[in-house]
């Protein structure tokens, strides 16, 4: 390892200089942006299921929910995130890693060795599945920050982990962190989602919350890391849609220090959640109202104090409003949030059966999984569906003190997004 993330903290002078706006005109490609340098268009299918009682369900459920939505993808990306799946290591950070080659694995493991106590390192259990090829080396690690080094770094454990994610994604060539949360993991790759699910043997995992995704990109990125969900710590996001306001959303985020480098709408949605929920401390319900704002005609009819609140939300967060068709599911340790765009241009159906709340792009998924739901409904445009697991914490990482550029760097691992990370 050339750079020491915590002691040298990636001196900015040694980072490549690369300006976003120059990039438009054919400047150098960022080192690990294996997604297209252009914005990727496409449609998708998604699902989220959460048992609010905390009861665990098999990953098979998620696979079945995605399998009936096969037509919504084209085999170029599928993935899942499961929560509560590692009860034997509930307090360890679990890193799901993708490596292009052994050199990348050695380099990444050197980082783990240096900063963490590794309690278990093992190849990700997989089985051969027809249709899945070109898989990278997949490993997982159950880690705890080295207590001495953590103290030396004067950071919270969450910050420490995100710094590590940032370091590996941006500096270790050929290594990518697919997920890094506690008691959760992301399983994703290039293929149809049921193939990906079987490949990762998901039916052997038990989780209280699952999200799944099926991708239909209009080009062929072919990168396993580019499949959904995108994750940071225990947040995961799956997304179906095309944000027509991407241009201003990304410029708005850049003013707060985020760097939108992957050209995916999902990245923008992830940063907006980070900005509103973690940094601006907005309640989840209001963050949803900012992202999928009510119409002015609706606001004008609200009671006066709600009018004042909604006017302010729209006037302040207008540039962050996600305009255009989307359905998003945000998973976290403690539940999930599903949100549709403001005039419902993408499908999102919800169902409840006892303590189980489920959302999906198509009702077929609920009928397949729930069998006899108490209620199936179509959430209204901009109206969030929120599931909370009883007794679990609210999902805001109170111990996280990251700057925007650090979040960008961690999520994308593109060097460009890391260049402004401040030297503390």
């Amino acid at each position, binding site marked *: 390892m050339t750079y020491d993330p915590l002691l040298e903290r990636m001196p900015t002078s040694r980072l490549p200089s690369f300006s976003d706006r120059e990039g438009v005109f054919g400047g150098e490609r960022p080192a690990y942006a294996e997604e297209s340098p252009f914005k990727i268009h496409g449609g998708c299918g998604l699902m989220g299921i959460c048992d609010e009682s905390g009861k665990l369900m098999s990953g098979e459920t998620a696979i079945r929910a995605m399998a009936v939505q096969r037509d919504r993808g084209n085999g170029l990306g599928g993935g899942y995130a499961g929560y509560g799946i590692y009860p034997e290591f509930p307090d360890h950070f679990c890193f799901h890693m993708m490596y292009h080659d052994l050199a990348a694995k050695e380099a990444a493991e050197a980082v783990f060795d240096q900063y963490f106590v590794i309690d278990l390192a093992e190849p990700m259990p997989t089985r051969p599945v027809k249709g899945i090829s070109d898989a990278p080396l997949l490993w997982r690690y159950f880690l705890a920050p080295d207590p001495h080094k953590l103290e030396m770094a004067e950071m919270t454990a969450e910050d420490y982990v995100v710094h590590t994610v940032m370091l590996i994604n941006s500096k270790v060539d050929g290594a990518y962190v697919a997920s890094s949360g506690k008691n959760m993991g992301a399983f994703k790759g290039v293929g149809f989602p049921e193939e990906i699910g079987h490949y990762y043997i998901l039916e052997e995992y038990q989780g209280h919350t699952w999200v799944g995704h099926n991708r239909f990109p209009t080009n062929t990125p072919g990168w396993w890391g580019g499949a959904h969900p995108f994750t940071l710590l225990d947040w995961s996001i799956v997304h179906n849609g095309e944000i027509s306001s991407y241009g201003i959303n990304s410029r708005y985020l850049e003013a707060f220090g985020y760097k939108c480098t992957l050209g995916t709408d999902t990245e923008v949605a992830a940063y907006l959640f980070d900005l509103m929920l973690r940094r601006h401390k907005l309640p989840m319900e209001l963050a949803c109202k900012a992202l999928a704002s009510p119409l002015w005609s609706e606001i004008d009819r609200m009671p006066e104090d709600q009018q004042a*609140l909604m006017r302010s939300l729209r006037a302040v967060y207008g540039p962050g409003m996600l305009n255009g068709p989307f359905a998003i599911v945000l998973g976290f340790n403690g539940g999930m949030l599903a949100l549709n765009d403001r005039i419902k241009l993408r499908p999102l159906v919800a169902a409840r059966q006892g303590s189980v709340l489920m959302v999906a792009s198509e009702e077929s998924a609920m009928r397949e999984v729930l069998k006899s739901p108490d209620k199936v409904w179509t959430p209204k445009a901009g109206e969030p569906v929120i599931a909370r697991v009883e007794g679990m914490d609210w999902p805001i990482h109170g111990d996280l003190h990251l700057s925007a550029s650090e979040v960008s760097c961690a999520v994308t691992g593109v060097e460009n997004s890391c260049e402004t990370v401040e030297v503390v």
Partner: protein
Amino acid sequence: MPASLIQPEFKVKIDYDKCHKCGRCVQQCGWGVYSFNERPIPDDTKCRACHRCVTYCPAHCITIQKNDLAFRDNPHWTPALRKSVWRQAESGGVMLTGMGNDRPYLNVFDHLVLDACQVTNPSIDPLREPMELRTYLGRKPDSVEVETDGNGGFHLKEGTGVSNNIQLETPIIFSPMSYGSVSLNVHKSLAMAAERCGILMNTGEGGLHADLFPYQDHVIVQVASGRFGVTPEYLNRGAAMEIKIGQGAKPGIGGHLPGEKINREVSETRMIPTGTDAISPAPHHDIYSIEDLRQLIYSLKEATGYKPVGVKIAAVHNVAAIASGIVRAGADYVYLDGFRGGTGAAPQIIRDHIGIPIEIAIAVVDQRLRDEGIRNQASIIAAGSIRSSADMAKAIALGADVVAVGSAALMALGCHLCQGCHTGSCSWGLTTQKAELTRRVDPEWGAERLTNLVHAWSHELQEILGALGVNAVESLRGSRERLRAIGLDEQTCKILGVKPAGL
């Protein structure tokens, strides 16, 4: 020697076979082109091609043609330059003119095209779906702070949220044109239309006539270097105040209203003697730098219980740094006026050669404010030849919050862009104070035409937003990803933050 070497620009042709000999052309022409001797006899030298006579001729027998005299070819010495030399050799003076820069500089708007949705994201039909243009003008906080009400609901934390913003129903306002440079009927038309459209008009630097008091909630009151008509009452009547530092048509110089246009009513409104030239100084004599501007901004706020204060500047080379300073000085909006902006009177040499295009100014100011993390602290109003809803959409996509229209508004009232505003003889009754001419604009008629124009552009903006697949104007604002350049050089594309078409 002939009195002038300069030949008439236009030729007035009358088809006498069709002419009714009614004399209406004689009556309509404000420039005194026609005399009448059994039939109308035109004097070509006075014609400005404003088409007033053509429009009102009952027999449609008048036409105006260019006096297409051949000059020995010399691309370097255009006929216009030769005429300027002759004119100045005759007069020894600074050549005055009206309206905006007419030189054939590259027009950036005409090299930008907008996007539309196909397949992966749907376009939205504004005839069937809501399409929101509402815009809030003014300073906004970085974030919204809320408190829980204990029942699962939330309300704004005391003293936070968006306040002192002006609600506009569409992102168009009328640009400042002073009473004096334009007639009271024009001002009334603008004020009535502003009220009907839920937008704003702007007094310009000539004060607020009592007849406009009923519309004061839709009026920006301007404070310019001459301080004409500025009283505490004037400031308090406006919905917002605007400090005018510069104007796109004449950056760096003050205003000039010829004494001929200062009749009794103008004099009362401006608080100056009748018949004297109203000359506002080039700089504000209490603003010699940014800290002085800050003092004036806060003086105005103190005087009015903290109403919004904007600052209008001409788009010049370092406009980004100036705008940043203005925002930090406490302005609620920055009004950028590009070099094609109109004027009632300006030296032609200044109008045609100073300043930069508004497209560039919007792009650099918006980017600078974002780079400095202060974009939300002030709105950007863009003006200086917004000619259509397409220009408006492109200006908004580059980063403007609101566009201001002056020339287009005057054209809605009949202006034919003849560039004779400074003469005070406008045949259309717009830029004149002669009672026989000003009565040609009925404020009710004017307000209806202006309202039509604003509504038409708003509908077109809605169509554009629908094609772009967004249903609120804030999703276009600053979204340069939705613009592409055709035929602009790489450096200009970079400055605009716009990719070339094909990328």
